[in-house]
């Protein structure tokens, strides 16, 4: 008998399944549409006895055969589609932004997670609490209603005339019962409806059906009437919505009790639960408010507490960033003994250690620089004397006897080589000690190319080769160290002529918005695959047996590479054995900018390669053409 405990909204809005399966009662079925009925459906819409539910709403599609409307509709649809696309793209952008914020803030994550979890938990608890309260209140209401109904029933049983079979006086009997019941409970204060019902009996002529106060009997479910009639021992109740107190009133949820009494009569009580409903609504609102406040309070607390952790971490991150930019004095303040303090302490130790190491390295570098400088000076002064003396002897060599004369010649040339080597060594050591400085000014690189070709031109003339310049008309101005770039270009050009085997050397230059490039191409010995990296190594020679016409130091390209790197530029090589090589210098136009590409290609175009492949290799072993070309063997003296 104990009522089950569905949610209170269920109680007040729906019937128990048993009550609503009466499918022949169309109005009843319409009164409560299926489980998915929501309050959106106005209750007054549901039909009751005598009324059929209204037909479906009139269609909203435009009638066919109206082209103007159709095209307008198409336009509307298109606009809608556009709007939808706009909205969706904006939504996507917003989502991306949110994701980024989410990822980047620990506090945001903690606070929003706390918010969500506490909201869920509090909702669940609140719901559960609400359920309990509702069930409790409902139980109480049901209990008092049952008591009332039982009392009434007991009273009705004692009324005169009820035990006899219903006859023409049934109406009077029923009225009396009703009157007594309502009279006796007038001062109870509760509002309810009472009905005394005589279920229709097909064998009997039609007697008065029902008398009621505040209970529109037309709404009594037929299935209940039957059930109550069958079992005459106890009152039955259901939850129902009936118009209360009268036929035209709004549907009110309540408890409907029914019990048989007398011979064939039935007594119905209807207890509206409006007050209960209002109370529960109040409780619900209060709970919701409190829950919301609690959730935000928790979120606020979470935010405050995460600050304890997040702020020190953010400070440490900031400190690390400052440290990485070179600000080695950066330290964190240490408070207390906890993990955050441990973090700060370790950070400080790390920074101090870094600073010390840097200082040591700097000192070492300084020592090295000083050494280089001292060596430089110490070596150079005696070398000057030697040089001048050797020159003097060289000038006077005709006046010496043969071996002395020859010695003077050898002294002269080797001294030149020695000097060049010393200069290059000192230059390289300056790079190693990070002591090289860039002395940049605005220079027209294309002009500089021609200017640097002086020595190479002389060499080329002696070999019968030409240097061809393919330089753009407009100036290629860049911010470079003139002396260094000249050195690089001179080295590349001399190398090209020297390894060019008498063939022409082509120098190309070009500039784009960010960089300037110079390519020196020769068609001589070339490079084997893999050698294009080795060629920049210190003292590397392509062929150790090769004699050199100019006393190269072996450091030329290494220094050139360092010079290029000092500018933030590139120096690269490419070659094919026997078909020549390409050296490309790329320099950024502005000091400090990073190179992303080069205006000229390093590897020649495929068409050119194919053309060269078609020509036969010039074998190095074949005798050189007898000509004004100087062979490799003879020595050239520097004048």
């Amino acid at each position: 008998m104990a009522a089950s405990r569905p949610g209170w909204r269920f109680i007040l809005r729906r019937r128990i399944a048993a009550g609503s399966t009466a499918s022949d009662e169309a109005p009843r079925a319409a009164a409560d549409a299926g489980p998915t009925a929501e309050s959106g459906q106005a209750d007054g819409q549901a039909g009751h006895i005598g009324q059929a539910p209204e037909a479906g709403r009139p269609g909203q599609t435009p009638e066919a055969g109206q082209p103007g409307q159709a095209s307008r509709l198409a336009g509307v649809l298109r606009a809608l589609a556009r709007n939808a696309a706009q909205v969706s793209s904006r939504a996507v952008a917003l989502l991306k932004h949110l994701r980024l914020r989410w990822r980047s803030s620990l506090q945001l994550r903690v606070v929003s997670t706390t918010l969500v979890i506490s909201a869920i938990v509090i909702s669940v608890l609140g719901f559960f609490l609400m359920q309990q309260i509702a069930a409790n209140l409902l139980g109480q209401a049901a209990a008092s209603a049952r008591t009332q109904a039982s009392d009434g029933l007991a009273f009705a049983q004692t009324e005169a005339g009820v035990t006899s079979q219903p006859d023409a006086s049934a109406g009077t009997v029923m009225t009396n019962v009703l009157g007594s019941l309502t009279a006796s409970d007038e001062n109870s204060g509760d509002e309810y409806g009472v009905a005394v019902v005589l279920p229709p009996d097909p064998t009997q002529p039609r007697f008065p059906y029902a008398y009621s106060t505040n209970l529109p009997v037309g709404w009594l479910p037929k299935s209940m009437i039957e059930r109550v009639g069958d079992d005459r021992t106890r009152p039955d109740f259901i939850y129902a919505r009936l118009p209360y107190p009268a036929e035209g009133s709004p549907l009110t949820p309540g408890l409907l009790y029914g019990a048989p009494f007398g011979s064939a009569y039935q007594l119905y009580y209807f207890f509206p639960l409006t007050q209960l409903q209002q109370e529960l609504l109040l409780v619900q609102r209060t709970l919701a408010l409190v829950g919301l406040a609690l959730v935000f309070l928790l979120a606020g607390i979470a935010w405050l507490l995460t600050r304890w952790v997040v702020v020190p971490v953010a400070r440490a991150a900031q400190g690390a960033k400052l440290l990485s930019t070179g600000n080695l004095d950066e330290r964190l303040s240490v408070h207390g003994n906890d993990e955050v303090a441990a973090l700060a302490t370790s950070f400080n130790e790390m920074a101090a250690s870094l600073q010390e190491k840097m200082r040591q390295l700097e000192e070492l570098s300084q020592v090295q620089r000083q050494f280089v400088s001292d060596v430089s000076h110490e070596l150079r002064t005696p070398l000057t004397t030697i040089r001048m003396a050797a020159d003097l002897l060289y000038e006077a060599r005709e006046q010496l006897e043969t071996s002395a004369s020859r010695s003077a010649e050898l002294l002269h040339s080797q001294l030149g080589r020695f000097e060049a080597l010393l200069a290059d060594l000192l230059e390289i050591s300056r790079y190693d000690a990070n002591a090289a400085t860039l002395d940049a000014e605005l220079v027209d690189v294309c002009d500089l190319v021609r200017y640097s070709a002086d020595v190479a031109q002389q060499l080329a003339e002696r070999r019968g080769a030409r240097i061809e310049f393919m330089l753009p008309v407009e100036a290629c101005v860049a911010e470079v160290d003139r002396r260094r770039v000249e050195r690089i270009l001179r080295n590349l050009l001399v190398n090209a002529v020297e390894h060019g085997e008498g063939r022409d050397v082509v120098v190309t230059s070009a500039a784009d918005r960010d960089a300037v490039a110079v390519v020196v191409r020769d068609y001589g010995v070339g490079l084997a695959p893999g050698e294009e990296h080795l060629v920049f190594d210190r003292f590397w020679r392509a062929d150790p047996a090769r004699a050199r016409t100019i006393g190269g130091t072996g450091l030329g390209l290494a220094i050139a590479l360092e010079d290029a790197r000092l500018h933030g530029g590139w120096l690269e090589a490419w070659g094919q054995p026997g078909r020549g090589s390409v050296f490309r210098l790329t320099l950024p136009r502005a000091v400090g900018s990073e190179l992303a590409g080069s205006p000229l290609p390093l590897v020649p175009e495929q068409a050119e390669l194919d053309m060269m492949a078609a020509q036969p290799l010039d074998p190095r072993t074949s005798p050189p053409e007898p000509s004004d070309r100087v062979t490799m063997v003879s020595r050239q003296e520097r004048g």
Partner: protein
Amino acid sequence: MKGRVLVVDDDAALAEMLGIVLRGEGFEPTFVADGDRALEAFRDTKPDLILLDLMLPGMDGIDVCRQIRAESGVPIVMLTAKSDTVDVVLGLESGADDYIVKPFQAKVLIARVRARLRRTDDPAPEMLTIGDVSIDVAGHSVKRAGTPISLTPLEFDLLVALARKPRQVFTREVLLEQVWGYRHAADTRLVNVHVQRLRAKIERDPERPDIVVTVRGVGYKAGPG
């Protein structure tokens, strides 16, 4: 040609070698081995050119140069083992006309010495004007609004070279050839520093020069605009 050369260097072997070379070319070298006595030696011997080593015991070569420059416009050529820009510029700014990096060839040294000693005797009186600066070429004097400005011979030559063709841009290489007499493979830093020195002396505002004007990426020219 006048030929007295004062050699200021503390390395005895090098000094002797320089002496041999200079005498071989017809110059008259005198020697002094430390900075403190350099000024005195200069006053005593009145050389036509000074070869000055930078690393000297006693007074530093830079200070010696300044001292001598304060007194006279005699050509000074620095001999130095340091080729870093900082050191070179310092030396040039203190008054030297040129510098040679050790080790050097005797030929190069002699050529530079001769270039410095060569003074073109231009008898034709010539007056040049740039802005409010007037130049008397034959008289080797420069005046701004009547007030004379004292320039070293090299600075004077530089100014005259520019002023002779006002508004023509001279590249550094061309200036090296015309003013210093070096054909090629000389350091253009020489020009930069001497232009700075010249500006410091004759410009109203050296930061915004209007007599010796820089043309970016090319060189220098004389004259405003």
